[in-house]
């Protein structure tokens, strides 16, 4: 009997236990910190607002990642506060991952003191397509089930960010990533346009099509700005053309008001830099005929995203529970007290 305990049939179990022990905190030495030299740079994947994104291969694990480089100048008061805060947030998120948020493998940075330039390289997981490309390559009519699958995952990722007090601020089909197995992952959160357009060496015009009116009017805003973007993206999923394709910053608000009507009364953002009478009074048009593929619940969801007043617009938590998605919100609020083990004699 006792021979059998460590006999052949238990070997698998033993190996599994040994592996578990190794993975525990007290296990062997940690792998050395990665540097840029560990990555072989491949083709450019895209040109973001803040720099290029490349496919890179990690020579240590042989896997491919996306490398995004941000180059910024130090301002009069050192490294911009926004950059510091956002990278600190991303760094924290490397410890708490969510299946619908692109995970950050590591952040590397170099400082060129002589030119007063700071370069930050983010190494992230790589996905097959962005939503923009994905939508160009699927049949024109999207089944509601598939749309729901995409939107539900977007909402789960967004709810995770919001519950960690992170507002994306720049959601758009280009930074929503889709894999072959139709998993959706939000990317580019944290480094918002609002914060970096003055400090990043940006050569690329950033699209304003998905931006909420209160942001365009530089009024106060909260996490529901991301829900506005979700509304615009839902329209695009069903209709394959952008909802508010404003040609430039000045025209973007006209584009919105022409379709939804100029906001009146309390719907006009209170701290807006522009007075309401700078805009003509548009009455708005019905969008329902554009989105014939939508079920009534989907349409209700879509409309709740595009409510002018941020206080009345649907939040991400409410969106998960909406009749259209019927998803259970998962509480992800980090707990303060944890189970610890004393291990420091």
């Amino acid at each position, binding site marked *: 009997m006792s021979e059998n305990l460590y006999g052949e049939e238990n070997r698998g179990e033993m190996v599994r236990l040994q592996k578990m022990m190794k993975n525990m905190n007290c296990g062997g*030495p*940690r792998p050395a910190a990665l540097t840029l030299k560990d990555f072989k740079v491949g083709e450019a994947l895209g040109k973001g607002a803040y720099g290029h994104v490349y496919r890179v291969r990690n020579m240590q694990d042989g896997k491919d990642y996306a490398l995004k480089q941000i180059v910024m100048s130090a301002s009069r*008061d*050192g490294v911009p506060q926004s950059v510091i*805060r956002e990278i600190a947030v991303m760094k924290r998120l490397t410890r708490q991952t969510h299946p619908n948020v692109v995970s950050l493998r590591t952040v590397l*940075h170099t400082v060129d003191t002589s030119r007063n330039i700071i370069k930050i390289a983010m190494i992230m997981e790589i996905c097959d397509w962005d939503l923009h490309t994905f939508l160009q390559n699927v049949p024109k009519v999207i089944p509601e089930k598939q749309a729901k699958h995409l939107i539900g995952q977007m909402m789960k990722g967004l709810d995770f960010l919001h519950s960690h007090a992170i507002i994306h601020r720049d959601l758009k089909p280009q930074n929503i990533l889709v894999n072959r197995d139709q998993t959706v992952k939000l990317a580019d959160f944290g480094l918002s346009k609002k914060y970096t357009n003055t400090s990043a060496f940006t050569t690329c015009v950033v699209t304003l099509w998905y931006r909420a009116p209160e942001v365009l009017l530089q009024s106060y805003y909260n996490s529901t700005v991301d829900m506005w973007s979700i509304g615009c993206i839902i329209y695009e999923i069903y209709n394959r053309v952008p909802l508010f394709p404003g040609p430039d910053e000045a025209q973007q608000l006209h584009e919105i008001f022409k379709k939804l009507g100029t906001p009146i009364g309390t719907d006009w953002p209170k701290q807006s830099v522009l007075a309401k009478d700078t805009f003509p009074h548009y009455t708005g048009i019905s969008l329902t005929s554009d989105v014939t593929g939508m079920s009534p619940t989907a349409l209700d969801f879509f409309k709740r995203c595009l409510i002018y007043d941020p206080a009345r617009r649907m939040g991400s938590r409410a969106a998960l529970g909406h009749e259209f998605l019927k998803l259970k919100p998962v509480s992800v609020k980090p707990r303060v007290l*944890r189970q610890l*083990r004393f291990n420091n004699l």
Partner: protein
Amino acid sequence: MTDQKVSEWIWHVDALKSTPSVLAGLNKDQELLYRREGIKLISEVGNALNCKPRPTIGVAAVYFHRFYMMHGFQTFARELIALGCLFLAGKVEDFPKKCKDVCAAAHSLYPEIFAKYPNLVDDVMGTERLLLHCLKFDLQVGLPYDALMEYKTMFPDMSRDQITDAVQIAWTFINDSIYTTLSITTEPQMIAIALLHLAFTVKGYQPVQQNMDPCWWSADVSNWPPQSVDKACHLVLDFYAATKEHPILSAKKLTVYGAF
């Protein structure tokens, strides 16, 4: 050094015996004094700028202690690192202070220490970049206060006045613990436990009934013997003892050991 770590930012107590400063010739007590002086600068300059112990000064102190686990006092001047930590913590915790205000406060509070820095603003901004690099942008630091507030509600056998009193005393202990190396050897939650335990002991309060496990923390931190909790408390008590006779920076001058 890596094998002397419990986790990325928590070191084994033994690591304090072979810090970069010790390896470069400072003895352990001298290093602890240097640490206290640096923290004093953070605290006083921070106070002058209306920074609070929670979070800005507390976070800056953690940066400071972590930094000197990677570099020696002989290589990097603690007065500059202190200001850099304070400046950076302000940004991270969203109470940003202008670099020139930080430097002006430092010059006016400690003219002698900062006299040799005519371009202090540039030096502090350079320090900020050095810190970002050394701290690996891992700047969101937990402090013991949050855990302390959670524990406040967990003693049904104590009167409201007693627990409020104990928490207040523990809060002060946490404020002062930044002068010790607790934050780099002990998780914030464990610091909260130890210093709340110290507050109970100092006041003679019974946190749990006689027939219960006196180690009220054992549900959260397993295998933490009372002697070891007391050891953590002694770090703070030692600090009070050491500074009672020799207040930190009382002459507004930094202590200098040996010729570097």
